[in-house]
């Protein structure tokens, strides 16, 4: 019964994040090609003069977005680790580090994946994240504070959560999403500057003849989308990230078969109120708990949060546990 709950949760999470990702790509496509479509409708019936048939805006946008996303893809993991000042754990120097190394090995076995590279962030606030392109090139990073705050079972639960991100290819998805958001923000800025300049030039042409009403609607909608694109794209990325957190909690619990330990670990991490200073804003959505100082709960705050409320995560984990761990 509990098992089916867990697998149902996984399936539901996967479906939702698939749709969100599809929506994200469609949104990006609309930003690129919507303008082309509007201009095409507007100039389709023109007897003479310019007819917009080549989707130039879309082509340029796709190229720029592709370049930005590729850069985030190829260099992202390296930059994330570097910005957090993480040090790779090669030779365990203390009992804590030995334990961490062993726990990562254990979870790699449980998930049937190669052991990821292990990094330690010199920060006293407990937090952890994973990054990388795919399971064979994955990294797990934890803070000093995490090693000190958690017992063995809780550490295992946190590492299982990170291994779940790796196994579910969240590390890839989140790296790509960060790239896409970056590209959209860049393009939106570019367009706004272009329109401010181009609007004056185009103004003279209008009034010559009645424009196609459909074209006007399409172009208006496109312009409005451009203006709100940075906000909407960030909200969508955060929504994907929140769903993946639930999924990673569920998969992590499947690996350790001990959801209670993760629930306890999350409560401990939530209780540590200080911000994880060494983790920058761009990496926030990769961490096991939001590294920001204090989180806004409810309403709009939750829309922009990279993580679901801890209380909700703990509640779902406890619902999976058949009995409190001995």
């Amino acid at each position, binding site marked *: 019964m509990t098992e089916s709950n867990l697998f149902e949760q996984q399936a539901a999470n996967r479906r939702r994040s698939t749709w969100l990702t599809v929506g994200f790509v469609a949104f990006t496509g609309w930003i690129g090609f919507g303008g082309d479509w509007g201009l095409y409708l507007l100039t389709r019936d023109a007897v003479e003069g310019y007819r917009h048939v080549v989707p130039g805006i879309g082509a340029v946008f796709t190229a720029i977005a592709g370049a930005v996303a590729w850069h985030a893809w190829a260099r992202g993991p390296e930059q994330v680790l570097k910005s957090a000042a993480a040090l790779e754990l090669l030779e365990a120097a203390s009992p804590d580090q030995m334990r961490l190394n062993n726990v990562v090995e*254990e979870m790699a*076995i*449980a998930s*049937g994946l190669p052991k990821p590279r292990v990094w330690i962030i010199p920060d006293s606030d407990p937090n952890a994240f994973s990054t990388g392109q795919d399971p064979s090139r994955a990294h797990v990073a934890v803070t000093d504070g995490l090693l000190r705050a958690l*017992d063995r079972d809780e550490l295992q639960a946190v590492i299982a959560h990170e291994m779940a991100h790796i196994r579910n290819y969240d590390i890839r998805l989140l790296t790509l999403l960060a790239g896409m958001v970056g590209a959209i923000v860049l393009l939106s800025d570019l367009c706004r500057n272009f329109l401010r300049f181009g609007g004056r030039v185009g103004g003279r042409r209008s009034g010559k003849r009645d424009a196609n009403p459909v074209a006007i609607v399409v172009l208006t909608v496109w312009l409005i989308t451009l203006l709100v694109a940075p906000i909407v794209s960030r909200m969508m990325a955060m929504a994907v990230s929140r769903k993946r957190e639930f999924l990673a909690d569920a998969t992590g619990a499947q690996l350790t078969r001990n959801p209670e330990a993760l629930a306890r670990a999350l409560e401990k991490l939530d209780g540590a109120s200080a911000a994880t200073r060494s983790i920058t804003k761009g990496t926030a959505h990769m961490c096991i708990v939001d590294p920001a100082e204090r989180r806004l709960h409810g309403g709009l705050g939750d829309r922009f949060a990279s993580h679901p409320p801890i209380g909700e995560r703990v509640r779902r984990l406890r619902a999976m546990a058949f009995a409190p761990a*001995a």
Partner: protein
Amino acid sequence: MGMLIVLGILVVAVFWAIGAYNGLIALKNRVLNAWKQIDVQLKRRHDLIPNLIETVKGAMSFERETLEAVISARNKAIGAQGVAATAKAEGELSQALGRLFALSENYPDLKATGNVAQLQEELTSTENKIAFARQLYNDEATLYNTKQLQFPTNLIAGIANASPAELWAIEDAAERAVPKVDLGFNKPPTA
């Protein structure tokens, strides 16, 4: 026209059969690989035990029976063949080790030496790795067993030479009651 439809159905059927066959072979190899993972961890445990005995021998010399039980359980486990027999022998070894650990709690000076704390962490981790490798093996084996019995893949199972993989069951009632032998070692090492 009718010929074409029959031919089309035949082509689809052949492609499906190839896919199902390859799927079963892939699953079978995953089961074999998971079994190898258990093997690796069991070997590691067997290698660690002489070390452990050597370290605690001095302080616990009058617990000779317990020490000897561990050694003989280890030797029996090394010789075991097949899933069921290995599972049984390893279960006994886990129990023997559990008794040794429980007794070692009575020797505080033993725990005080860093060497023992390190060995304990290693053994705890190895026990966990065995448990997780076993879990992975059972999950993969269940997936494989389910697939080869489900319709329509079961039509191909004979051709792919698929037979149900044996699950690693815990034979011993005592071990089932206390699935973790590392109780009390979950605390971070004190050294």
